[in-house]
């Protein structure tokens, strides 16, 4: 998935806006048009709900996510327990609500690390060029030589299962995409006249990169960021499902799917609801990503 979206965002870098669509009034009209689409409205409401659940989940949840109730093991979904209870009688609805914060936090932190590392590596490679470029890009290639989750698995295994280590492991496989993207943007923009002008005025290299090159070339990077949100969420849940993200027993969605799977044939709700939470959240983040893509990269083809 990462590779395909990368290629698509490289295509997006080409400016497609004609003169008329650059008029402020036309741009505002287009923005409103995008924001009023049903899919955008669903995406924005969904994200508001997710943020609310992440911030106030513990207060909203009807039960404490860790509260044991051994008399009510495996009770099916009903009025008492909306999503049923698990093997220890814990309320799955409450655990799904409280789990929101782990997933959202993982997405935000993984993408922040990937972005920062990607900008530092990619901008240095593209701006300095020569041997530095060669070395940094070969290192990037080596990280890309592992298929997806495999390297994350090895790193998480070495560091031990915890949410922090899971986040580090996924960030380690995610930054190379950004390094390549940023390098491409820097190469495309660094020979512009306004960059030369800034240099002749005595701007430092860091200042040139940050406020002249990145400011003009950041749009495709942001598009990639919004398209990646759903992927990171599902990958993090997958790592936890394998027992290498959130430790066993945490109210994290992937770990809950794992915990429920031994008894799923007799109690279908155990893994079904946490998995549904992953699916719907990723779906919502993807819709949001499509919306941001339309806003940030006008004229680009829709992802799907």
């Amino acid at each position, binding site marked *: 998935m990462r590779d395909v979206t990368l290629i698509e965002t490289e295509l997006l870098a080409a400016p497609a806006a004609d003169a008329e669509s650059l008029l402020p009034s036309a741009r505002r009209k287009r923005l409103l048009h995008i924001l009023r689409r049903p899919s955008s409205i669903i995406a924005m409401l969904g994200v508001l709900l997710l943020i609310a659940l992440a911030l106030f989940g513990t207060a909203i949840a009807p039960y404490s996510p860790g509260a044991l109730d051994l008399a009510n093991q495996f009770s099916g979904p009903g009025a008492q327990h909306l999503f049923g209870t698990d093997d220890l009688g814990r309320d799955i609805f409450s655990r799904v609500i409280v789990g929101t914060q782990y997933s959202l936090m993982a997405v935000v932190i993984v993408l922040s690390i990937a972005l920062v590392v990607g900008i530092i590596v990619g901008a240095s490679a593209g701006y300095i060029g020569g041997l530095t470029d060669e070395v940094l890009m070969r290192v990037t*290639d080596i990280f890309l030589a592992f298929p997806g989750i495999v390297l994350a698995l090895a790193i998480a295994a070495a560091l031990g299962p915890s949410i922090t280590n899971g986040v580090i492991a996924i960030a380690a496989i995610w930054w190379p995409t950004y390094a390549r993207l940023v390098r491409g943007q820097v190469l495309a923009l660094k020979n512009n006249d306004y960059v030369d002008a800034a240099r002749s005025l005595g701007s430092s290299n860091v200042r040139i990169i940050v406020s002249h090159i990145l400011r003009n070339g950041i749009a495709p990077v942001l598009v990639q960021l919004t398209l990646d949100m*759903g992927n990171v969420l599902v990958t993090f849940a997958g790592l936890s499902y394998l027992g290498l993200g959130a430790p066993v027993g945490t109210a994290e969605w992937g770990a809950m799917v794992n915990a429920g799977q031994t008894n799923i044939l007799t109690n279908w709700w155990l893994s079904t609801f946490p998995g549904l939470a992953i699916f719907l959240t990723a779906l919502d983040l993807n819709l949001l990503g499509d919306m941001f893509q339309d806003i940030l990269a006008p004229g680009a083809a829709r992802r*799907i």
Partner: protein
Amino acid sequence: MTTFLARRLGFLVLVVLGVSILTFVVSHLVPADPAALIAGKNASPATLAIIRHRYGLDKPLPLQYLSYMGGLLHGDLGLSSYSRRPILDDFLDYFPATIELTFYALLISVVIGVPLGVYSGLSRGGPLDHASRIFSIAGSALPIFWLGLLLQLVFYGRLGWLPELGRLDTFMAAPRHITGIYTIDSLLSLNLQALGNTLKHVLLPAFTLAFATLSLVVRVTRASMVDVLAQDYIRTARAKGVDRFSVVMRHALRNALIPTITLLGLQVGNLLSGAFLVEIVFSWPGIGFYSVNTIQNADYQAIMSITVLIAVIYTFVNLLVDILYIKLDPRINYA
């Protein structure tokens, strides 16, 4: 072509070097002392020192790396403390199951995805086109380990049509070992019972693994079909009186499939990493299943060696895919 191949083979060497350094560094991030893991909890400092010496853990890190690398080059990946066998033997035992699963997943993606994509490209805006759009939006958000469990719940738990776990029924003997890929082995040894049983077992995991790729295949095939159908040569063919069916099959499809093949090449990595999850859901004894088990048993040597092997295989597959493109589309020129 020659310079392209030389460059890519050079890159392969670099990957082996880089990947082995990377995994070596990662395996030394392990907070636990490997000597203590081997010796057990109550070992005396003297025992630990002996073990460190025997496994070369008392040497400086660069020397340790060199002896590790020397082993790798001789095909010696070390011993697995989980299975107590050479890691290479384990790999050769488990990897065919992953190849089999991935092959069927690719097959399902193509056999279902291409016709569906062509059809929605031909009937743009129709109900099937909308359905395939929804399907492909869902495809990228669906966690496949969850999809696998749901399919088990329905097709094994409720309907009882398909088996839940493994490659064969519990009491069925594996076909005579020739390649380790049961479909091929049972065909070669004319063991039709094992063949049928294998196919029944592979259906759910392969479909689960295929799902994300399938939805992309539908979308990409549809888009390139729409593109190709708008080309002048299609109009020319129609104007010459070629019937619609031949235009689609002979003129359009052939060119429309190039992006689909590119996509399938890019998907090999996703299928391999997806296999790690699917193999756990379905207890499919492939390399993902093996790796996760070694991780749960703190067998770091095995994890690192397997990681290096997979990276090398993946890089090699990518090279093959690139060569295939050149053969398929003479316009592509890498040199």
